């Protein structure tokens, strides 16, 4: 259930994001989900990749500040109100979300990547409500 997300610290300067994507591309690592959080001073690049451990080590070798973070991915119907239902359940059980990002798979389903404060509890709560979680191996393959 738990997915290893790759997080990279980036200073706000031209070309850094480009460098990361080049390095991963050259290593034949595919990105299946991707988001950038930014402040005026720096940004954090978060992504799900085909081979997280390999990506970690090659980016470290290239002197990036990088780490793997545990996240989960909720497979949700691609319809109005679906995300609200899921978040309603989590807030009802006092699960705090640090951040999330989402993308549509097709017109039927969407994937929501979640970083909760308590990952085990989050999984239990979602499963208890018959919510479908994407397995890590499936996620890396997308």
């Amino acid at each position: 259930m738990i997915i290893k997300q790759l997080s990279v610290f980036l200073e706000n300067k031209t070309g850094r994001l480009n460098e990361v994507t080049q390095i991963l591309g050259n290593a034949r690592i595919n990105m299946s989900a991707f988001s950038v959080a930014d402040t005026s001073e720096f940004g954090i690049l978060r992504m799900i990749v085909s081979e997280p451990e390999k990506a970690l080590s090659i980016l470290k070798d290239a002197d990036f500040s990088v780490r793997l973070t545990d996240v989960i991915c909720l497979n949700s119907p691609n319809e109005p109100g679906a995300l609200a239902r899921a978040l309603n359940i989590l807030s009802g059980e006092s699960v705090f979300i640090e951040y999330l990002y989402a993308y549509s798979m097709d017109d039927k389903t969407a994937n929501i990547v979640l970083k909760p404060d308590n990952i085990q509890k989050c999984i239990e709560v979602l499963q208890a409500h018959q919510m479908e979680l994407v397995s890590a191996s499936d996620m890396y393959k997308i």
Partner: protein
Amino acid sequence: MIWNEKIECASRDEMRDIQAERLKETVRRIYHNVPSYRQKMQEAGLVPDDIKSVDDLSKLPFTLKTDMRDNYPFGLFTVPMSEIVRIHASSGTTGKPTVVGYTRKDLNNWAEMVTRSLCMAGVHREDIVQVAYGYGLFTGGLGLHYGCENLGASVIPISGGNTDKQLQLMEDFGTTVIACTPSYSLHLGEELKAKGIDKSKLKLRVGIFGAEPWTENMRKEIESSLGIKAIDIYGLSEIMGPGVSCECEHQAGMHIMEDHFIPEIIDPETLQPLPAGEIGELVFTTITKEGIPLIRYRTRDLTRLNYEKCACGRTLVRMEKCKGRSDDMLIIRGVNVFPSQIETVLLEMSETSPHYLIIVEREGNLDSVKLMVEVQEQFFSDEIKQLEALRKKITHKLQSTLGISVDVKLVEPKTIERTAGKAKRVIDNRNL
């Protein structure tokens, strides 16, 4: 007016006689009361009787800022604490401040030096002096304050900051003399303009500026923006505080209070004394100080001395505006900052690496400091709030250690240039 004509206009011979007597006495007192300096003298094979005149000064070992740290806090005091009536402190090279103690006589002497300085600047007892130097551990505020009282001028002890209030009192009270850092005076001038206050409505006529380096161009700018005569005052807390030397109205070098301090100029590399007129590091020996007398204290300020009699009639030797430093100390908004202090703060925190770069700029007329710090890989969090918290923590620690606010910028690891030799830690973009 010359406050103490007998001293300030004494012949060179008279001055050297005064200095010789006081030097001998000082050396004796330190030898018998400060074990660390006695040891230095013994290592150099010296006893107090070897010092018979000012010419023997160069035989004596130097005192360094690190000696003050090694004897922190009161180890260099030569009187019991019951004789000490005031303590001041300035920044040390690392975490510990440099501490100085004054006896009642020291404070009286200091007040007289500041009074002499004020007279040199053309200030008299009818003046209203706004002291906008910080009051507190820093010697600027209290130093100027007691000198003004001793002169009989009216002091407004407003301390630093709060520009609106400074301008209001200046206007309402009819301030005639302002004492602050030169950069702050430029800031006051700008605010005056911004507020549409006509400077001809102010009674300001003299400014006493010190605690940071400033150029002749800055002087012109200050004089025109405030409509005053800008006078340079010099001092350092280790030696006394403001009033160690000061310009007279001729603005042709700062007269050193030679009956209290003997200046020398040395080559900072060879440590040998340089002939009069050459630029080198200024070294002071205090000869009347009781609380913490210092022999051959290396100020690290680079300047030169002029022994010619001044047009004002004073014979006190004059030092030029300081040309720079023989160490890496920065003076930011009047506050002394050593890169090593910043390094100490970063090393105490496990989250950051000791790789950093300090960038100093002058925006408008005020100095600003940016510090680039590398985030240690293992402390990189993928949550923005934690990185922001780290940035705030560093900012707060620097503020409390240095006494100035620093704009901290987190940067990627290994992006700050590594050099094989001495690392380049400071980029100073101010044109001082």
